[in-house]
């Protein structure tokens, strides 16, 4: 047995060794925390978001930010939001992407101001080994791992359907988009036009673009009303165009004769909805977009790439004055900021 080997052990050697064991044991007893590692602190991962606009005024993008904040806290990310201050500044959008690539975050989430123009930047990001996601507006080429946002074509289709359901057989239809060339806009218009295809094509006016400026949208629509006083329906593809349209209709006191269908749910849109200026709005879920983008980034970084769909449809709801105060819709269209 091994103890035969201990035949050399004398008191002077063995006793200190025993005491050592006992001391360690007692120390462990008294300071158990020293023994156990803390819950493993993941190194914080980083995401950079490229927004179409970093301007504070957009409620849509504020909600996206809230979602990002909630997601980042939950999944352990640090994040930054870059971008041009103007949705029309495509170069600024591209520059922001390049700036993000230089920082070398773990993930970049891009909302492209222009579907075509951002392709190079997107490819560059992926070549640098950064995971690329797109949010709200996609990018040409198949570079992104996942697109998080609404099904913009479907949004457009619903816009068209809602208008068709309310509008009579008479009157023209005006379409106001927010950024020409942005994928979200193009797809929505496409969806709307497809849906309206069953109507007389002469009724449909060519779309105008307000470049993200609601005042401009209002002027454009006022101009259209002057040109075509028989406009009976307006489709606005987003918050800015919607507010401009609402302002125009409200000012011209045309709410009873003109059906306005919009996308998004800024508070003033809601107010117009209550007043009857806007007849229906397609509410997106920007908070979810923000949160899901972080969740997806987390999944991709953990190597669950196969479980992540290429397109995460955050979904939309059709909000009218009748259903806007149901509990569910309240939760959707009024962001909770406790």
């Amino acid at each position, binding site marked *: *047995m091994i*103890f*035969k080997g*201990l*035949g050399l*052990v004398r*008191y002077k050697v*063995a*006793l200190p*060794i*025993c005491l050592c*064991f*006992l001391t*360690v*044991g007692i120390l*462990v*007893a008294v300071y*158990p925390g020293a*023994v*156990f590692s803390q819950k493993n602190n993941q190194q914080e991962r980083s995401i950079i978001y490229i927004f179409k606009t970093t301007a504070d005024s957009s409620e849509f993008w504020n909600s996206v930010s*809230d*979602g990002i904040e*909630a997601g980042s806290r*939950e999944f352990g990310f640090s994040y930054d939001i870059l971008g041009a201050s103007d949705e029309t500044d495509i170069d600024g959008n591209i520059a922001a992407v390049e700036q993000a690539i230089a920082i070398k975050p773990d993930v970049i989430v891009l909302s492209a101001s222009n579907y075509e123009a951002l392709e190079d930047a997107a490819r560059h990001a992926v070549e640098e080994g950064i995971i690329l996601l797109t949010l709200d507006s996609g990018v040409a080429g198949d570079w992104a791992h996942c697109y998080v946002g609404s099904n913009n074509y479907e949004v457009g289709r619903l816009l068209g359907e809602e208008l068709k359901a309310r509008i009579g057989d008479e009157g023209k239809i005006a379409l106001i988009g927010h950024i020409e060339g942005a994928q979200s806009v193009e797809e929505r218009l496409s969806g709307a036009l497809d849906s309206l295809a069953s109507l007389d094509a002469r009724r449909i006016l060519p779309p105008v673009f307000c470049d993200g400026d609601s005042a401009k949208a209002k002027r454009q629509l006022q101009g259209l009303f002057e040109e075509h006083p028989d406009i009976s329906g307006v489709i606005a593809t987003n918050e800015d165009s919607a507010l401009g349209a609402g302002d125009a209709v409200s000012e011209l006191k045309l709410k009873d004769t003109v059906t306005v269908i919009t996308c998004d749910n800024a*508070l003033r849109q*809601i*107010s117009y909805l*209550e*007043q*009857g200026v806007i007849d229906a709005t397609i509410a997106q*879920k920007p*908070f*979810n977009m923000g*949160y*899901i983008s972080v*969740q997806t980034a987390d999944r991709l970084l953990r190597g669950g790439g196969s479980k992540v769909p290429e397109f995460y449809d955050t979904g939309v709801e059709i909000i009218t*004055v009748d259903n806007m*105060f149901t*509990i569910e819709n*309240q*939760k*959707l269209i*009024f*962001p*909770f*900021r*406790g």
Partner: protein
Amino acid sequence: MKRRKEYSIQQAITLSFSVLTLSIVSAALIIAYRFTIEEVQNVSTDYISQLISQVNDNVDQYVTYIEDVSEVVRKNSSVRKWAAEVDSAGPATTMVLADSVINQLTGIVNVRSDVSTIAAFTPSGSAVFDSREKSLNVHARYEETDWYTEAVKRGGDCFVSSSHVQNVVADRYDWVVSVSRAITKGSGEIMGVLLVDLNYSLINDLCAGVDMGMQGYLYVVDKEGNIIYHPQQQLVYSHVKSEVVDDVLGKNTQIIKSDGNSSKLYISNYSEVTGWTVLGVVNADDLIQSSNNIFTFYALFVLLFLAAGAFLSAVICQNLTDPLQKLVIAMEEVKSDNLELRSNILGNISGPREATQLSSAFNEMIAQLNQSIRQQEKAREERREIEFKALQAQINPHFLYNTLDSIIWMAENGDSDGVVEMTAALARLFRSSISEDRELVPFSVEVANIRSYLTILQMRYKEKLSYDIDIPSGLLLCSVPKLLLQPLVENAIYHGIKPKDGPGKITIKGFEDKGRLIIEIGDNGVGMSKDQLSNILNKKPHSGGIGISNVHNRIRLIFGEEYGLSYAGALDAGTIVRVTLPLAI
């Protein structure tokens, strides 16, 4: 090669000690662990239950307080006056009535950061708010809302709403909890409804600041299961997260829910006052994690103590078996006929008392063994010496040349017969003694020798000496030491008879007495004094003679202390020496 595995004390003790320690400590570990786990879990859940209960109490208090505020407001005279008169009043009066209400309400709202809005409404559509900046949202059909209809229904009792967006104020859509109450006339008729909207600042303070530990959180739901407060309220509202509601609604209970990855413990506490349920959620996995930690801790403890114990037992064993092993080695040496035994062979043995006792006993035994060996050696030495001396004496020069003198004298005198007889006797005497190297000889040989001796002496002393030998023939076969009789007879003649005037006689008698052979040699010579008698056995022999003491010692050496010589007699009365021998053939 051993058939059966032998084991040492060391192995046995160490093994059993280790097994015992291991089993005891393991048993203790398991008991302590289970106990600790249960305690930890119970303490955790108890703690959380208490927290939840406390939060619920706080919420109850808060709501009750707000209800009291609302009571104060609705009893306020300005408010009552407004409610009673505004519907029928003109614009100016309306303004005045409204202003007085606003003055009352502004104060309250300014002081309290948790009040979002206080307002009053009449069934006909008049409304007054806590500030002039707020106005009625004409599109909000408040008379259809819960807070209005319920307040009316309760006719004066408070209604506490769920969490909802308040659209009654133009251009504002705040998330609030509404506390509403009907404003009644004394008769109970309803004049209007008072609304107190609470924002989330205080509710947040009550709920969010509670530290549940272990990644726990709490949330509040109302009677229908709508969420009043949740730390991730927007996430829940967005349906990105869902929260357990149904199973815990309206009860005080604890349940565990698992969702594949993790399991959570839900503790609920229902309030009668508000109808709300407060829920505490703890990650049950954290409980398990901490229990894993506890187990690891205990196990580590066990291992350390086991190691220490085993080590200690090895040392103790060593201490026990060391002296024993030394003992074994020493005994092996003894076994191997090592005659060079050192006394105190084990040196200084330290250790338990039994070992030291054993080693001293062993030492004593060895010492005694040594002593007895030495004694035997000594005895053998003595015997050889005595034998040697006896042999020496046999060839006594005095006797020899006196006898030869006599032979020469007889030869000169022509006594050839005498020469022949004396020479023959001398030859017989010497032949016998020289040829004999045994210790014991048959008595017959001694008798023959003494006859030869006495024959010679008698021829020399003639009439002066006569002798008589009386020994039964049966005793002649006995064994006796050689050179037994001659010294005694010689002593009797030279010290007894020769100094005497006149003739002397030597008698030699032999007989058996109580199993012993007794030989008595008597003379009627000058005898010895008492002193001489007592000392004679000790006297050193005079030169050439071997002495009485030699014979005496030899007898005792060969046969034992109870045999030997004894002298008796007195001055001028002769001497008898008695030889006592065992009767041995």
